[in-house]
C-alpha cells in the first residue's frame, strides 16, 4: 500500500473502533443484568427460540429490566440452550439446558431475588469467591480456543461487536505490510490447510501470488458435506466477520480483487447471517471499493452450494460455480494456475481463513508455539455419537485421542464401553481403543489409517456394529460418487453390495478377501479424494475389527447387535412383571401382545427391531433382551383372540 495513505487508513479504522468501543461500553457499563443466549443452529434446535421468548415474557411479567443479546455457539452442544447471565454483584454465570421453565425460574429467583440457583448453573465464567469457575472443568481448561475464541461471546449479526473484540485489526496491520511479508508470516506460522489434506497455507498463497493472470480469485470452501462435522457452520454462524477478514487478508496478499464464499444451501442460518455480515462490512467500508481509503478493492459474493459431497473437492467446486455438474478434473493444472473461468484461483477452507486474523494479530511465533512441530496450531473437532459431552472442541494439535474423548468430552455414557472412534468422515477410518494414545496431528493419523479430514469424530460404544458402520459410509460415498471414474462408480457399488449382504446374513466365505481386493482397486483407480479415500472405512474396519466381520459371515451373528436382520428382541418371561404395560405403548408397530398370564411377548413377524421396548422396560425388570442370531430368541405364542 502507498505509505502516504497510512494516516488516512488508520484514521478511518480508528473511527470504526471508537464507535465499536462506545457501543460495547454502553452495553457493558449498563447497570442492568445482561442475558446472552446461544442462538446457533444447534441452540435453536434445542429450543433457544422458546427460551428467549420465555425470558422476554418473564422479564415483562416480573417487571425486571435486562438486556437480551443473541450470540453464536460456544461449542457446548450437549448443554444447549446455553445462557450466560451477568447480574450485577455476581460473576457472569453459565447456565445449561435452559428450558423455558428454567428461564422463568432464573428471572424470578436470580434477577429478582438474587439466588443464583446453584443446581442449574454450570459455573462462573471468571474467577470469583462465590461460584466455581468453569475454567476448573477439563472441558474448559484443556481446550485452547484460537479460531473459535469469539464464537458464543459476540453477536454474529453486529459487526461492531466483532470490531470491539479486536476484529479487523489484522487487516489494518496487513496494510502496513507488503503482501510478501504477509505470506511469509502465514508460512512461518506453519498453518496447514484445515480442509483435510493439510497443504501448507503459506506455500499455497505464495503460488497464487506468483501465478500469472490479470485477475485472481479467492474462494472460501464452506461446502461442509462431511456427515458428522459442523465446525464450519458454527464458525460462519458465530463469527462470520472473522472469515471475511481472513479472506480479505488473503486477497490483499495474493493480489485478488474478487472472492466467492461457497456455502452449503443446507445451512440457511449461516447464509442469512453471512449476507447480513457482508452488507455490514460494506457499510463500514471494510469491503468493496477502496477499503478504508487504502486503494484496495475487494468484494465477496455468496454462492450457495446445492448439496453434493464431491463439491468439497476444489476442481468440482469450481465446476459447480461455473454452472456445471460438480465433477472433479485431472490436476495439474492446479486451480492456483488455472481455476475458476481459467483464472488463477486460491481455495481455502473456512477454518483456514478463520485462523488468519488471529495469526496476524498475535504473530506467527505465537501460533507456531501451539501444537506440534509438523502440525502447528489448533484443530476443531466435532465430537459426537456415544459421548457424554458432545459438541465442538478446539484443542492444540498433538493432544492424544484419549484426553480428547475421556477428559474433555466426558467419555462414554450409560456405563457402556468405548469401542471405536470414526475420524475423518467417509474418507477416514475407524480406530479401536489400542490407538487412543495416538496424538492428533496430520501425520500420526495418516499413519494409523485414518485422517484429519474436516474434523468430524464419531465415538462409538460397544453396541455399534463396525460392519454396519462401514456399510453406512459406503452407502454414502456410493450415492455421492459423481460417476466419472469407473472404479469409484462401480467399485463402491459392489463394495456396498457385499457389505449389505454381510450385514443381512448372506455373507460368503470369500467375501472378506473380495472386499480387500476391491477396496485397493477403488483406491488406485480413482481420480479425486472421494474415490481414493472411499474404501478407508472398509479397509480400517477390516484391519482392526476382522473378527466381527468373521462372526457375520461364518456364524451369521452380529456380536454388537447393530445389524437388525441378524438380531431379535424377546421378553424374558422370568423377569417380565405381570400386569405391567410399559412396553406396549412404546412399540410403533404393535408387535407386543399380552400372554395368558398377563405378561408380554413380542410377535417376531411384526417386530421392526427398533429397540424402543428395551428403553421403555423399567430398569428394575430389564426384561427385554436382544440376541444374535435371531433364532436364539425363545418363541412365545400369541394367544388366540377369542380364548
Amino acid at each position, binding site marked *: 500500500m502507498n505509505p502516504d495513505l497510512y494516516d488516512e487508513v488508520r484514521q478511518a479504522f480508528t473511527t470504526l473502533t471508537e464507535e465499536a468501543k462506545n457501543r460495547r461500553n454502553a452495553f457493558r457499563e449498563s447497570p442492568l443484568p445482561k442475558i446472552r443466549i446461544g442462538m446457533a*443452529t*444447534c441452540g*435453536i*434446535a*434445542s429450543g433457544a427460540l422458546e427460551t428467549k421468548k420465555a425470558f422476554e415474557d418473564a422479564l415483562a411479567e416480573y417487571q425486571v429490566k435486562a438486556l437480551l443479546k443473541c450470540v453464536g455457539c460456544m461449542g457446548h*452442544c*450437549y448443554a*444447549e440452550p446455553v445462557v450466560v447471565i451477568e447480574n450485577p454483584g455476581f460473576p457472569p454465570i453459565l447456565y445449561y439446558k435452559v428450558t423455558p421453565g428454567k428461564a422463568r425460574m432464573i428471572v424470578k429467583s436470580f434477577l429478582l431475588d438474587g439466588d443464583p440457583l446453584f443446581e442449574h448453573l454450570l459455573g462462573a465464567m471468571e474467577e470469583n469467591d462465590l461460584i466455581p469457575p468453569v475454567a476448573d472443568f477439563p472441558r474448559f481448561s484443556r481446550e485452547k480456543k484460537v479460531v473459535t475464541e469469539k464464537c458464543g461471546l459476540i453477536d454474529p449479526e453486529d459487526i461492531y461487536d466483532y470490531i470491539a473484540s479486536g476484529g479487523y485489526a489484522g487487516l489494518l496491520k496487513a496494510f502496513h505490510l507488503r503482501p510478501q511479508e504477509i505470506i511469509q508470516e502465514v508460512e512461518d506460522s506453519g498453518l496447514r490447510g484445515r480442509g483435510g489434506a493439510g497443504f501448507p497455507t503459506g506455500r499455497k498463497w505464495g503460488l497464487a501470488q506468483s501465478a500469472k493472470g490479470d485477475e485472481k480469485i479467492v474462494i472460501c470452501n464452506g461446502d*461442509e*458435506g*462431511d*456427515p*458428522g*462435522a*459442523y465446525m464450519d*457452520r458454527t464458525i460462519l454462524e458465530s463469527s462470520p466477520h472473522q472469515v471475511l477478514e481472513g479472506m480479505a487478508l488473503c486477497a490483499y496478499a495474493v493480489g485478488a480483487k474478487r472472492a466467492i464464499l461457497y456455502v452449503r*444451501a*443446507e*445451512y*440457511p442460518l449461516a447464509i442469512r447471517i453471512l449476507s447480513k455480515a457482508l452488507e455490514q462490512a460494506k457499510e463500514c467500508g471494510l469491503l468493496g471499493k477502496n477499503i478504508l481509503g487504502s486503494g484496495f478493492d475487494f468484494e465477496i459474493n455468496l*454462492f*450457495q452450494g*446445492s*448439496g*453434493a*459431497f464431491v463439491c468439497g473437492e476444489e476442481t468440482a467446486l469450481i465446476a*459447480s*460455480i*461455473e*454452472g*456445471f*455438474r*460438480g465433477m472433479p478434473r485431472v490436476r495439474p493444472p492446479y486451480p492456483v494456475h488455472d481455476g475458476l473461468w481459467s483464472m488463477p484461483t486460491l481455495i481455502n477452507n473456512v477454518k483456514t481463513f478463520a485462523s488468519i486474523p488471529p495469526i496476524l494479530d498475535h504473530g506467527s511465533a505465537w501460533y507456531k508455539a501451539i501444537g506440534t512441530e509438523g502440525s502447528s496450531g489448533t484443530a476443531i473437532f*466435532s465430537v*459426537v*455419537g*456415544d459421548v457424554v459431552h*458432545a*459438541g465442538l472442541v478446539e484443542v492444540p494439535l498433538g493432544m492424544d485421542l484419549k484426553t480428547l474423548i475421556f477428559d474433555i468430552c466426558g467419555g462414554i455414557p450409560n456405563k457402556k464401553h468405548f469401542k471405536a472412534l*470414526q475420524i475423518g*468422515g467417509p474418507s477416514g477410518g475407524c480406530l479401536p481403543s489400542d490407538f487412543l494414545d495416538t496424538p492428533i496431528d496430520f501425520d500420526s493419523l495418516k499413519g494409523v489409517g485414518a485422517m484429519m479430514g474436516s474434523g*468430524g469424530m*464419531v465415538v*462409538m460404544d460397544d453396541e455399534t456394529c463396525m460392519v454396519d*458402520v462401514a456399510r*453406512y*459410509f459406503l452407502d*454414502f460415498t456410493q450415492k*455421492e460418487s*459423481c460417476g466419472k471414474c469407473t472404479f469409484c462408480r462401480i467399485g463402491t457399488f459392489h463394495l456396498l453390495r457385499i457389505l449389505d449382504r454381510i450385514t443381512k446374513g448372506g455373507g460368503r466365505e470369500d467375501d472378506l478377501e473380495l472386499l480387500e481386493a476391491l477396496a485397493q482397486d477403488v483406491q488406485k483407480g480413482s481420480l479425486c479424494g472421494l474415490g481414493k479415500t472411499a474404501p478407508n472405512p472398509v479397509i480400517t474396519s477390516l484391519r482392526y475389527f476382522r473378527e466381527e466381520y468373521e462372526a457375520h459371515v461364518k456364524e451369521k451373528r452380529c456380536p454388537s447387535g447393530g445389524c437388525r436382520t441378524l438380531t431379535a428382541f424377546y421378553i424374558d418371561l422370568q423377569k417380565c412383571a405381570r400386569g405391567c404395560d410399559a412396553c406396549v*405403548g*412404546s412399540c*410403533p*408397530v404393535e408387535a407386543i401382545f399380552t400372554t395368558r398370564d398377563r405378561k408380554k411377548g413380542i410377535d417376531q413377524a411384526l417386530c*421392526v427391531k*427398533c*429397540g*424402543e421396548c428395551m*428403553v*421403555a422396560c423399567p430398569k428394575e425388570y430389564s426384561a427385554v433382551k436382544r440376541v444374535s442370531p435371531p433364532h436364539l430368541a425363545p418363541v412365545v405364542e400369541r394367544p388366540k383372540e377369542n380364548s
Partner: protein
Amino acid sequence: MTQTPLAEDQVSLEQLTSVIQSFGKERKNLIPILQMVQQELAYLPPEAIQMVAAHLEIAASEVYGVATFYNQFRFNPPGKHPVKVCLGTACHVKGGEIILENFARKLGIQDGDTTADREFSIDRVACVGCCALAPVALVGDTVHGHMAPSKVEGMILGFQIEKEKERREKGGDES
C-alpha cells in the same frame, strides 16, 4: 383437497418468467436460477426446466443433467410439512434409519415421495449439522433433536389434529 395443485403451479409458473428474466444469460447463473425457481415453487417441474433452458439458450437435457446431479433439487412437489430425516454418521449410529422407517410406515410412503393429499413428504438428508442432538428430524424448518420412534406418531398426529381443527373452524364460519 379443494384446489387442484396443478392450477396453483400454473399461476406461479407465469410469475416465474419475469424472475428468470432478471438473471443474465451466462452459464454461471444456472444453479442460482434453479435455486430461485425451487424457492418459488418448492420443486422443479418440467415446464420450469424448459423455461430456464430457453433463457440460458442451452438444451433442456443439459439443465436437467445439472439439476439431477445436486441433492438440493427435487422434481416432485414436497408436502405441506416436508419431513427430512437426518442420516449423518451420528444419527446413523443413534438409529436414524429406524426413525426414517417409522415416518415411512406411518405415512405410507417411501423416502423421496409425497403423500397423495400433499400434506407430508419424506426425504433423507445427509447431515443437517446438529450431530450432538442425534437422531435428528426436520419437519418444515423446525429441527427436532433426540428423536425416538415413539415420538413420530405423536408428531404426525399433532399436524393432523391441527388440520382437523382448522377444517372445523372454517366449517363453523360458513354455517
